[in-house]
């Protein structure tokens, strides 16, 4: 930030105008989020049941209620560029308890979809895409799990693509159709070289 009044940058940032002028919102964003999430995102009355139910909130800056507010008012850029968007564990506790019968989790998922369209996405999510592409699993089996499974009397690998790798090409076909893998590879390469 430029030194407008000659203050140090940190102070300048502290003193910047934070008023909500109304024009930095996009009513279309509310409609799009509603459409993708298939829930009444505009009906939130900010009671906070979601944040109070959230296992992430007490130990992070993630505030699901704040994202709901952004959905109501159409704060598109603020919602999509906030890194907290990616801290939801999708446990659905908020959806279980919301008194307005909204599915806040699905609102977050919708916003993540919209963010991805702008290439806004943490690399670890993309690595998950790559893992699914190659193994059929977001979290592939590993030696620790294999040992544990055997100890519990189960097969080392679950009856999924791990046991039936012939189905992996089918999964790849789906991901390719949506260009998910290609986009993931591209963004990872841009970020990590």
């Amino acid at each position, binding site marked *: 930030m430029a030194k407008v009044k000659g203050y140090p940058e940190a102070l300048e940032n502290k003193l910047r105008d934070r008023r909500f002028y109304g024009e930095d919102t996009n009513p279309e964003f509310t409609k799009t989020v509603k459409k993708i999430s298939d829930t009444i995102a505009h009906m939130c*009355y*900010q*009671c*906070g*049941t*979601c*944040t*109070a*139910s*959230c296992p992430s*909130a*007490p130990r992070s800056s993630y*505030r699901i*209620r*704040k994202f709901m507010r952004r959905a109501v008012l159409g704060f598109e850029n603020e919602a999509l560029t906030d890194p907290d968007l990616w801290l939801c564990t999708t446990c659905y*506790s908020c959806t279980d*308890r*919301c*008194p*307005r*019968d909204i599915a806040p989790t699905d609102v977050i998922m919708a916003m993540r979809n919209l963010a991805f369209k702008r290439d806004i996405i943490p690399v670890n999510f993309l690595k998950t895409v790559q893992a699914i592409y190659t193994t059929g699993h977001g979290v592939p089996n590993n030696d620790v799990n294999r040992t544990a499974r055997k100890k519990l009397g189960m097969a080392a690998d679950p009856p999924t693509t791990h046991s039936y790798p012939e189905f992996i090409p089918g999964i790849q076909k789906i991901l390719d159709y949506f260009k998910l893998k290609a986009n993931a590879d591209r963004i990872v390469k841009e970020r990590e070289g």
Partner: protein
Amino acid sequence: MAEKKVTKKDAAQKTAKKDAGIAPNMAKEEKKPRIGVFICHCGTNIAGSMSITDVQEYAKTLGDVAFADNYQYMCSTPGQKKIEDAIKEHNLTGIVVAACSPRLHEPTFRTATKEGGLNPFRFEMANIREQNSWVHMHDSEGATSKAKDAIRIAVAKAALLQDLIPKSVPVEPTAMVVGAGVAGMQAALDLAAAGIKTYLIEQEPSIGGRMSQLDKTFPTLDCSQCILTPKMVDVGRSKNIELMTYSNVDSVEGYIGNFDVTIRKKARGVLTPDEAEARGFVGGGCNGCGDCDAVCPVIKPNNFEVGMKPRKAIYINHPQVVPLIYTIDFESCVKCGLCVTACGDKKAIDLEMQDELIKVKVGTAILATGYDIFPIEKKEEWGYKKYENVISSLEFERLICASGPTGGHLVRPSDGVTPKKIAFLLCAGSRDNTGVGKPYCSRFCCMYSLKHAHQIIEKIPGAQPYLFYMDIRSFGKMYEEFYYRIQDEGAKFIRGRVANILEDPETKNLKVYADDTLLDRPMELEVDLVVLASAVEPAADTNRTRKLFGVSCSMDGWLLEAHPKLNPCGTTTAGVFLAGVCQGPKDIPDTVASAEGAASAASIPIHMGEVELEPYFAMCIEDKCAGCGMCVKLCPYSALDLIEKDGRTVMQVTEAKCKGCGTCGGFCPGGAIWMQHFTTPQIVAQIDAFLVGGEQ
């Protein structure tokens, strides 16, 4: 909607002439109809969505229309004057006003029609507001076209309208009030004070309802019993009130002015002094001494104390009951006879008593059936009935009340210790769209929770109340000031709805999880006691009672008023009125106001002495009637009979009983039954006017 070409000779006219010889009232040839059409702008409500000029010009082209006009507000005095003047000036035979719903202003325009010298039933309304301009706000062309259709249809009917003379029936000068909570008691006291004999029916053994369970009342902090007991005593003493406790309404027949009500007086097992005297035990009957209570071996939870205190199988709810008569709970009585012995010479106890059915005739009735607490255990996340120290607000009222199970000492149910940190959960089950709770605001929980906070600060030194709220709705007189006062006294307000509660299994303390939305931080608060300000719902028996009286309910089960703003005490059943919470959640001031309104409304027909019935009766066209009698069985109001007339069997309508529902007319295989004001030719003319624009 395509506009239809209209010819002078319209189909409706033909239909009318064809049938003219059959209908008794149409026997004489009517003069050619001359209809006046008046189009209302309703400010911009109608005029903003359609072209009034176009509609008026179109109306003038209709065959029977002799005059068409428009005005900003037809319901205003100058608007009504236009109708009156036009009738005289243009020699009109029928009036059509295109405006709002007939539910709103049909009576207004009927009066204007009458003032102009026509029979008031020669008026027809075309709804171009609720069913047109309000729903087609952005389609002026479509709305204009639809208004033309509506007017054409209304004119077709108006051309065939006949003079009708409403019948008057005498009104029985007695009233009935169902439910003796504060609403029912107030309504009965007002009716009694107006000189009307009133039956007050209460299903519980004693009167007072929910209000008698409360400790103090907001915002004045009056003791609830102190202000209620005098009213209860007045009810007991009033010569005009016939109090029937432990009774409910079994069946209702009849109509405004003449309801025949059967009351089931449940077997109480105990005789009042009057009843004892009737059986020849002069000086006997229950005097409330309680000797029976002392010897009864059966112990049951006392519902009045929300199950927190025991009672016997023979019991009174609390020491101040009106009437002071014991009641036997026959479901738990073992008929050991100890009470009979203890009662001795008073001979007040009859263990073989049976339910009694009593028939009374009343002119009007008021329903004041009140509310129950929503079973808040259904919202599992708050642990009611799972954690001992989570209680409902009604339990709190009894625990803090000096006459309650703990003598007014608030204690934790788990260990009897006085709680210091107490959380109050507002909107517990209210404003809930999940399908588990109630979508509405229960309206008095905010205020009583403020009062609860005050009470613990006052009674428990060092106590700290926390109120978890979404909005504090302190809308009444002196309510916001009360909110200020409680905050000043030290209550902490946390703007966040509680997501869940967990219990510490050792201490039985409760961890309350919420989002302090104003601080934007999730919180976990350990408290000694949680009070849930539970939602309210219609009392259990409401649905059965309302059906007996033919009263509708809204989707949430509260009884439906005739108009939410302009007729909040009336119902769509003439002569039946609503008082208090059965119509929707109300605090005590609103309940009493509503009861006084209902009493006033219910007294009007009685003071008038007779009521006019709308003359929409069924009529039998005897030439066509085959006397099959099938309509007689179908009639829900037993208004039809078969009689012998001129050597034939024909149907006859008892007009006072007929409600004009049309069941018989719709069914009659011979088309021999017409409904007045909705005759077959009138309806056919309307359909023709719509489908073929009057052409055939």
